[in-house]
């Protein structure tokens, strides 16, 4: 399991890691709007370079960022392959298998690359967001924005206990192996559907743990009052409203241009 992205980035302070979380969310939203409003490879290329530049100057770990791109590689391959085989425009090659024609489309290839690039850009955007924004700062920002603290806190709580649950799963897997149930030795199809001996103890131990955690939280006054104070201080700067509105405005202008201009 990859080490939490924000942990890898937190050692170095930069304009990205110090950015107000809501501003970061708005920037992500703006990028997502632009990405979905076009399939132009030049626009995607420019966005790609912009994201790389932001990550580099924002002192984010570039290796981890590029590793995420590699994770998407199989998906990218299949998206392109499906488009090549499925599209019927601009056929460059036809192959007959058992009397059935399998066509390879140049239009499909380009469309596949465009969609694949879109997936990569979205993956990079979300990865940069989670690297740059510390969960605690995000919780505070969401609370300030009016989100109930319980739900704003949920993500941070999940990150805290994920390693524990995965460790429990490994322990359960080993315990079941010692009883002769070795799921790791099965092929990956059987493995998928014979999870009950792992799922049951994992869920039950999780629910037991949940009772204790909830009790401990309540004994420390969790959500006892409607309001709460915070140790961490996250305040928007004078630039934040400008960046937020500017980003949204640019995104909407781009959408308008994309609708009116066939080139984009």
């Amino acid at each position, binding site marked *: 399991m990859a080490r939490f992205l924000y942990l890898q980035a937190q050692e170095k302070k930069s304009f990205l890691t110090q950015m107000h979380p809501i501003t970061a969310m708005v920037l992500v939203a703006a990028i997502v709007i632009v990405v979905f409003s076009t399939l132009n490879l030049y626009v995607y290329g420019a966005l790609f370079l912009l994201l790389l530049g932001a990550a580099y100057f924002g002192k984010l770990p570039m290796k981890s960022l590029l590793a995420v791109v590699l994770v998407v590689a199989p998906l990218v391959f299949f998206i392109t392959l499906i488009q090549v085989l499925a599209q019927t425009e601009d056929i460059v090659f036809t192959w007959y298998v058992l009397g059935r024609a399998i066509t390879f489309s140049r239009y499909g290839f380009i469309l596949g690359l465009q969609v694949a690039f879109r997936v990569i850009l979205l993956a990079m955007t979300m990865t940069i967001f989670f690297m740059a924004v510390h969960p605690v700062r995000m919780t505070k920002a969401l609370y300030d924005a009016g989100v109930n603290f319980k739900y704003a806190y949920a993500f941070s709580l999940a990150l805290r206990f994920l390693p524990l649950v995965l460790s429990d799963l490994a322990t359960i897997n080993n315990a079941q192996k010692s009883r002769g149930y070795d799921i790791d030795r099965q092929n990956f199809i059987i493995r998928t559907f014979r999870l009950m001996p792992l799922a049951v103890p994992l869920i039950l131990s999780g629910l037991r743990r949940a009772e204790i955690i909830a009790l401990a939280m309540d004994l420390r*006054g969790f959500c006892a009052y409607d309001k*709460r104070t915070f140790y961490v201080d996250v305040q928007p700067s004078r630039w934040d409203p400008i960046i937020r509105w500017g980003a949204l405005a640019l995104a909407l202008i781009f959408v308008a241009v994309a609708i009116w201009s066939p080139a984009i």
Partner: protein
Amino acid sequence: MAFIEFRDVTFRYSGAPEPVLKGVNVAIDEGEFVGVFGDAKSTFCLCISGAIPHLIAGEMHGDVIVGGIMTRESRVSELARMVGTVLQDPENQLFNLSVEGDVVFALENLCVPREEMEERLVEALELVRMLPYRHHVPTELSGGQKQRVAIASVLVARPKVLVLDEPVRELDPLGGNEVFEVLTRMKEQGTTIIIADNDPERIAPLATKMLLIEQGRVQCFEEPRRFYELVHDNPRLRLPQIVDLYFRVKEPLNLHNRVPLTVEEGVETFGR
């Protein structure tokens, strides 16, 4: 008037056929260090913190009064300012992504002003000797360190009472020693401490009173030496090794000294 009082407390867990506490009457003064042994130890502790009856399903009769406040009529959050509760497993008591996040958690919930938090955070971490680890992720700590952070996370609210439910059960001996060093310091500061445990070895030398609950009823509630004189032959009670040795040789050696609670006292007792 006692600081903590149980007045004829009976409690039955939801779905259980029998109450686990039956007519318990106990009075604990401020500043005392009480070890709780036997059955229903956790239930006893949870009654003091207000988890029973507010958070745990069941049927409760009688009253528990802490610092003049009746637990049944107050909120758990109000009691949290006065009673700090530490549970068995430290892993399930640290919910945040850093040690300092865990320690200030209670302060944030209780709406303590931000300006006060830093001072209290440092004070609590220094008490448990974990200040150098304030920026660490909890998963990087040992069991003893985690439990010390859990203790700090309740001490930060400056409670008058510290309730610990088998705090060293999940820890190795070194971790256990670390926790008891903290408790020794807390005792010296005058905090009322209630600790439920099965291992009396470390508790007996520190305790001012020891409580034995069996089959839901109080069997004995005395200062440690008198406690062991009365219940040393109870087969369900584990004795400190030195106490066990004392009672084994008391008659053959015709000893009339007071019951030793530590090895040093034992040397003095047997040396004579």
